[in-house]
């Protein structure tokens, strides 16, 4: 599977990418939503985007909105990975088209379980 990891924290991108590699997946990374849209424009859709909420330039929720406005990205799953836990904000993300939600901090097992739940557990 091809994943796009979108987080302004290089530390979190590094953690997630290590987990994806261990699970046999391919990846690209972006520091904010705008950069992620540019990467998608240049490389085509990914199987899934793993998206932080609070980022400079373009937030995670703005990315979800922008991605869901593009019909060619309809098949790309979006998982929010964030410390945001307010029910209203989670509902907002899901209503805008996010597929799943994972709260930081998370274990390798929780991460792998979420991917499996989304049908994203097949290695590249």
């Amino acid at each position, binding site marked *: 599977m091809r994943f796009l990891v979108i987080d302004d*924290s*290089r*530390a*979190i991108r*590094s953690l997630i990418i290590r987990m994806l590699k261990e699970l046999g997946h391919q990846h690209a990374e972006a520091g904010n939503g705008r950069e992620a849209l540019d990467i998608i424009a240049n490389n085509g859709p990914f199987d899934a985007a793993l998206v932080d909420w609070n980022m400079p330039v373009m937030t995670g929720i703005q990315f979800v909105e922008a991605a869901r406005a593009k019909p060619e990205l309809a098949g790309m799953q979006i998982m929010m990975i964030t*410390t945001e*836990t*307010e029910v209203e904000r989670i509902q907002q993300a899901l209503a805008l088209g996010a597929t799943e939600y994972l709260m930081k901090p998370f274990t390798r097992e929780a991460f792998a379980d979420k991917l499996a739940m989304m049908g994203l557990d097949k290695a590249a």
Partner: protein
Amino acid sequence: MLEISQEDIAAIVSLVFTTTLDVEVEAAEGPPPSGGEVASSLVGITGNWDGAVIVACERALAVRFARAMFGISDEEVGESDINDALGELVNMIGGNLKSMLPPPCHLSLPTVVAGREYRVRLPGAKVVRELDFAANGARLRIAIAERAAA
């Protein structure tokens, strides 16, 4: 007024360190020793509660955090790795703390400072919780500062 107990904060800190870094933290007495190099990170919370979360640790410990987070050796750890690792740790602690505060609250982007003999002060705020931990033989302090309601 902050209604989150020391125990709840300790549980959040322990969860963040064990799940993210695979590092066990234990309650300890006293802050990181003075005189040595200390790295601090801070994240502000605004909204129905106003204040900040501050993480301060010995530089050696910050290097270990960065090493664990980036999967690199001590020798490969640079200043930007330490800044990013500490910034993310305070972001996760602040985010989890925020989930226990009355909504809506908003988290700022983290700030990191490092050096010797410095103090982090928030104008109009006072420290309402202070927890000291030991991890890998080094000291770590978590402080919660609360700004008085206007």
